[in-house]
């Protein structure tokens, strides 16, 4: 697949949130306000890209040569957890402004399944290092796009009359379904 097709497919056709069902907890958790949604989207783009780079290296230079692929899950989650911690400390020291705006979202990313999911998909699809990086940036951008779209709709819920039982997560999920339906239309593009 060409690089361009890879990008388009990762953002629109196989959107990580709406078609691959990854990263739904932050999707529903932090999408009540636009600012927090943008903060989360940036944090995910940042961490996801670095994480897939490192997990690719761990897979191909550590796990495969020693025949340890069965420890992949354990190794990847450790890499991601350590990385998030490290990014947090680094940002705190050197770019305090960015650290402040990403704030509480960074530690939450460890348990965002989009990060581990993208790393695992890249390995499963046998992407090279360059393709892995492109794929992760595009996936994270797709995540950000869906999150921001969703947050902008969700801000309006405050002033709409929603049945009591559906308020909160219920209507959130139905809305996500409708957004997913519109993304469904991209299916035939490539």
């Amino acid at each position, binding site marked *: 697949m060409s690089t361009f097709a890879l990008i388009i497919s990762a953002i629109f056709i196989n959107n990580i949130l709406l078609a691959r069902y990854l990263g739904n907890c932050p999707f529903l958790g932090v999408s009540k306000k636009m600012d927090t949604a943008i903060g989360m989207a940036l944090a995910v783009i940042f961490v996801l890209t670095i994480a897939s780079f490192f997990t690719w290296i761990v897979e191909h230079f550590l796990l495969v040569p020693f025949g340890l692929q*069965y420890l992949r899950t354990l190794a990847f989650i*450790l890499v991601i957890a350590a990385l998030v911690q490290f990014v947090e400390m680094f940002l705190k020291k050197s770019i305090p402004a960015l650290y402040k705006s990403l704030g509480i979202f960074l530690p939450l990313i460890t348990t965002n399944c989009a990060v581990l999911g993208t790393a695992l998909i890249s390995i499963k699809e046998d992407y090279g290092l360059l393709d892995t990086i492109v794929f992760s940036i595009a996936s994270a951008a797709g995540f950000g796009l869906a999150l921001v779209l969703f947050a902008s709709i969700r801000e309006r819920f405050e002033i709409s009359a929603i049945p009591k039982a559906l308020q909160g997560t219920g209507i959130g*999920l139905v809305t996500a379904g409708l957004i997913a339906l519109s993304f469904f239309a991209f299916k035939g593009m490539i």
Partner: protein
Amino acid sequence: MSQFVKEVTKGLWKDIPPFRFVLGLCPTLAVTTSVENGIGMGLAATFVLIGSNAIISMMRKVIPDEVRVASYIVIIATFVVCVEMLMKAYFFSLSESLGIFIPLIVVNCIILGRAEAFAKKNPVMLSIADGLGMGLGFTISLTVLGFIRELFGAGTVFGLDVFALFNLNFEPFGILQQAPGAFIALGLMLGLMNVVGKIVDNIMARRVV
């Protein structure tokens, strides 16, 4: 003993995941295209929950507070690797259809959430009970959702064409098998649970009075 039963039953109705806590949505949405996948995912998560709750509770006085989340993740990941290998060995087709969602049990927020909210401060037996209850509750939720999506989305249950069995002509709503249908079905089910939950709670309250 009664405490044990109480912790188990709590997960089955009062705190049933993912409806009462909105955690662990990714596997809920992704694998419930059929009843079989729902049950498989639920039981795999139950196994990890019981194991990780037991070990974390055993080590709750040893693990320093600052690194507890990292330690929990290592413990959970260990059990997930076990599940992965067991499923590949004994339920190969199921493990193929669940795909990357088996390794992703590691980041299922229900498991880390129970470690943090329960196993961290309760004795081993109660933590196992909590894990068992939550796991079974999760399994029931996934099975029901899988049943609805498979029945109306594909017209089958456990791969069996039930509508043809009763000579009914039914055109399945294919969208229920796809991503948008998953979101909408779960959202509506959440709303339904809220309504039913309120009615049941009212009846319970009246009985006590």
